[in-house]
């Protein structure tokens, strides 16, 4: 029945020559995800993708938190576009959902208010002596993975199947608000039924869980999370989602926004510490993955090279279900090859089942 509401997807994702804009949040919390994405696009799909050392923040989190004025943020975005223009690219690929929403919003405002665009051009020229072209194409990296999901499937060593039962894994998909809610028409399925993660999950063998609070915000809230006094707002939103999905017993959560991925991971720890409640099996949590991490483990990357050891909710039960081999002794080893010691164990959220 739902299908009748789905709008036809007109692919607006460029085929090649991507200018990658790194995300403060994804680099910090899911460092391996950005490297995996570049690797997949460049080496597995054979596409050209720029990783420019001159990049910097888009200032979006500062803007949405109310400490950076609109003109300043627009000019910071304009500098990123100038770097793209200087590098000879036209297809802008922001890794962060906040950036994705922001650059789309900025470009849309410039479209409706050309005098604003001229003012920002003037600011950038005065401040940095730079000029820029507005990108011809803005796509999120998840759009690119979605676009090439079939090609990637052919290269995958594993699938979203429980190797013990032979049944598809049950996956909750969470779409960051600034991906589909600001400009729903640009997204297949719109704000209600965005297809991007659903398409990956189904193509790679999993089953999508539908649950009441599926489209609810994770609760980041920008300024709400930034001060300790208001983090309860953020935790309460994630809790609402976790409570709503728990009865469906999902094997894991897949998200396209690095902020949402981090919050739904960390709040499971906080809720367990403060209330003793856990949402996964046997006192463990529900693992939360980025789509890059998911693609990587299905492709056979070492989970500890991708960064799965940096999640608070432990991923081993999921890897076991998928039949993915890993070396427990390698988990807490650093770049130098040295063992870095193990993190402390939480009070309530189990790190090993039946401990």
């Amino acid at each position, binding site marked *: 029945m739902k299908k009748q509401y789905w709008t036809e997807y007109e692919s607006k994702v460029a085929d090649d020559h991507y200018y990658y804009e790194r995300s403060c949040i994804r680099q910090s919390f899911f*460092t391996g995800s950005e490297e995996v994405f570049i*690797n997949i696009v460049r080496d597995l799909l054979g596409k050209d993708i720029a990783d420019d050392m*001159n990049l910097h923040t888009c200032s979006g989190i*500062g803007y949405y938190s109310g400490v950076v004025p609109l003109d300043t943020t627009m000019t910071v975005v304009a500098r990123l576009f100038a770097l793209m223009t200087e590098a000879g690219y036209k297809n802008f690929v922001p890794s962060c959902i906040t950036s994705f929403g922001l650059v789309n919003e900025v470009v849309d405002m410039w479209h409706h208010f050309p005098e604003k665009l001229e003012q920002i051009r003037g600011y950038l020229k005065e*401040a940095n002596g730079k000029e820029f072209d507005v990108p011809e194409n803005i796509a999120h990296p998840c759009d690119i993975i979605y676009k090439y999901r079939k090609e990637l499937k052919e290269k995958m060593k594993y699938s979203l199947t429980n190797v013990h039962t032979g049944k598809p894994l049950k996956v909750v998909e969470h779409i960051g608000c600034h991906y589909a809610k600001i400009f729903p028409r640009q997204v297949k399925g719109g704000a209600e039924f965005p297809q991007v993660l659903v398409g990956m999950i189904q193509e790679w063998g999993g089953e999508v869980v539908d649950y009441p609070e599926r489209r609810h915000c994770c609760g980041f809230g*920008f300024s709400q999370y930034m001060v300790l006094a208001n983090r309860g707002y953020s*935790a309460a939103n994630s809790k609402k989602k976790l409570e709503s999905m728990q009865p469906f017993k999902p094997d894991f959560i897949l998200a396209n926004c690095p902020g949402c991925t981090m919050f739904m991971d*960390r709040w499971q720890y906080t809720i367990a510490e403060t209330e003793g409640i856990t949402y996964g099996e046997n006192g463990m949590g529900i693992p939360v993955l980025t789509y890059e991490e998911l693609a990587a483990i299905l492709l056979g990357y070492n989970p500890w090279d991708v960064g799965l050891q940096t999640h608070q909710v432990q991923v081993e039960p999921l890897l076991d279900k998928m039949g993915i081999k890993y070396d427990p002794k390698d988990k807490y080893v*650093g770049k130098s090859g040295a063992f870095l010691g193990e993190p402390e164990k939480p009070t309530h959220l189990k790190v090993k089942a039946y401990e």
Partner: protein
Amino acid sequence: MAELLDMISADIRYIDGLKACMNCGVCTAICPAAEFYNYDPRDVCNTLMSKDEVAIAELLKTDKIWHCGQCLSCKTRCPRGNVPGLLISLLREVSIRMGYFTESEEGRRQYAIKKTLGEHIVDSGYCVHVMHVKPHLHPEQGPVWEWYFKNSEEVADRQGGNYNKEGSGALRKISEESLKDLRKIFEVTGGKDFFEQIDRQSKKKASELKKNITDNVDDNEYFYHVYREKNETQE
């Protein structure tokens, strides 16, 4: 006072974000902040549409405009194409420019956000970087984060990062040229003045509240007050 209405009505967020609100309340129904706080985006539209300068100035001095989580779920839903979240973004900017933000407990928190997030942008070129997420300010991040924080270069670089080093790659050091350009952008576009306004007004408020305020975060009594305390009764 006319200055206030002029500032609001000239902003593209006002022109883009408020057509004619029919008070249906759909935005309030979808709004996660309305679920959690005593906050109503429809009310914000009403006050703005009234063009009553006194009422708008009052709104800018309350906690209400700081409750929104900027998720923009309201943009998807409004049958009239209004965007309460966009109006909030404008009202927050105006509240700071007019110096009204220190009148409310929630508004005063902008000082803590400027000291952390805001200053990080011009100092490091990142809104957020591993080195900024200090475990003592972020107990909710948990023990695995503490482990990452303690071993950040080893852990980041194992994942292909280039932690605080020159060149490209995740978590790299942002080049001096980019930082110089970012600071210049803040100067030319008013971002620097905006930061100074937050500081100036916060210093005034700190002295009224008899809280010590310093440039440093670590021994800054006012910073910790607005960062973690929630003592006053909010309407």
